[in-house]
């Protein structure tokens, strides 16, 4: 009987690992795109780059996070046994996750935006652009990673059913 209630996310993990891989691929593309943006200064490309980067980041972090969240699979099975459908658990969990992740991504994107304004305000040469790009990698990327990691760290300590707990 003990094994019977261990129903969970095990099959979903593979999907989220693939999402993580997808994120890496998208991020590499965005890096190339960003370099092109710096040289061409076409604003639409910048906006598209940000959008793709954000989506990729959300997907990748979601993938990584669901690997962490595998530990909740036992709990989900247990609650399903007493009568909560799985969608109820997953929905509560995802709403909470997406809200926190959006906030953490916003910090990273804000840094990105500030740097972009700085770059486009000056008429710089190609070599200067390359230096700026290097600076971007060294400063903005770690900031983005740190902000998303902070979101991940918070998530690993927060609890699904937050909304329910508040009612008690």
């Amino acid at each position, binding site marked *: 009987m*003990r094994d019977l209630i261990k129903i969970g996310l095990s099959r979903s993990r593979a999907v989220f690992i693939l999402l993580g891989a997808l994120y890496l691929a998208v991020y590499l593309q965005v890096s190339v795109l960003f370099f092109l943006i710096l040289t061409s200064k076409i604003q639409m490309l910048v906006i598209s780059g940000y959008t793709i980067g954000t989506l990729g980041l959300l997907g990748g972090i979601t993938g990584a996070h669901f690997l962490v969240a595998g530990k909740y699979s036992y*709990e989900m099975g*247990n609650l*399903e*046994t*007493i*009568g909560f459908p799985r969608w109820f658990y997953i929905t509560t969990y995802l709403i909470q996750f997406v809200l926190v992740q959006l906030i953490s991504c916003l910090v990273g994107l804000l840094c990105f935006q500030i740097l972009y304004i700085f770059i486009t305000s000056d008429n710089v040469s190609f070599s200067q652009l390359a230096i700026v790009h290097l600076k971007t990698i060294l400063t903005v990327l770690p900031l983005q990673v740190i902000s998303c990691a902070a979101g991940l760290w918070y998530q690993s300590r927060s*609890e699904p059913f937050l909304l*329910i707990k508040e009612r*008690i």
Partner: protein
Amino acid sequence: MIRINNIHLYYRQHGIALHALRGVSLDINPGDYIALVGPSGSGKSSLIAAVTGLIFPSEGDIFIDRFRINRISRNARAKIRAKYCGIIFQFSEMPGRFTIRENLYLSWLSAHRGKDLSEFEERLELVCAKLDIHPLLEIRPGNLSGGQLQKTAIARAIIKDAPIILADEPSGDLDPDNVKRVRNVLQEEIENGKSILMVTHDAKLASDAHTIYELRDGQIHNVLK
């Protein structure tokens, strides 16, 4: 209330099929108190698990009320468990991050969505008084002894006020005083019109049942009472 219609259950391990249930049929009506006894491995727990919809019979059907639970979706089965069944497991497991009060609330909530919290508090008082678990309410399951955990698992099953109680070894980790308490609780539930299907090795607990079935080799071997 529950109709088990000629069910067979096969477990397959390493290519070997184990015939756990062999054509078991059983009707459980409101107010029925049925005990399943028999040696380990005779299929008692498998039968309870099949009724809860956590495993499927390979052949045959199980109805709870008008729902054929082996032919409906996973979510629908969860909803039926929420509405109709209070389940006591052999190994009492509860989500460890919630206190006992929160675990009991989750169980109650599964059957009483949208109802006022005061109704839960009233029911909680009643159940706590019956099982003497007041001091355990703010403790997390990981800090409880086996016996305390078993009592809270019984509380989790009865707090829902569900019409069916499915119990797999409810007195497994309990001392004689608490076994007596549990016997009284189950007796009260029967008087309130509930149905109980219970697996037990405890002769005294089994003697309270209206009907005792002995299972051997996955079949109802004998009706002892």
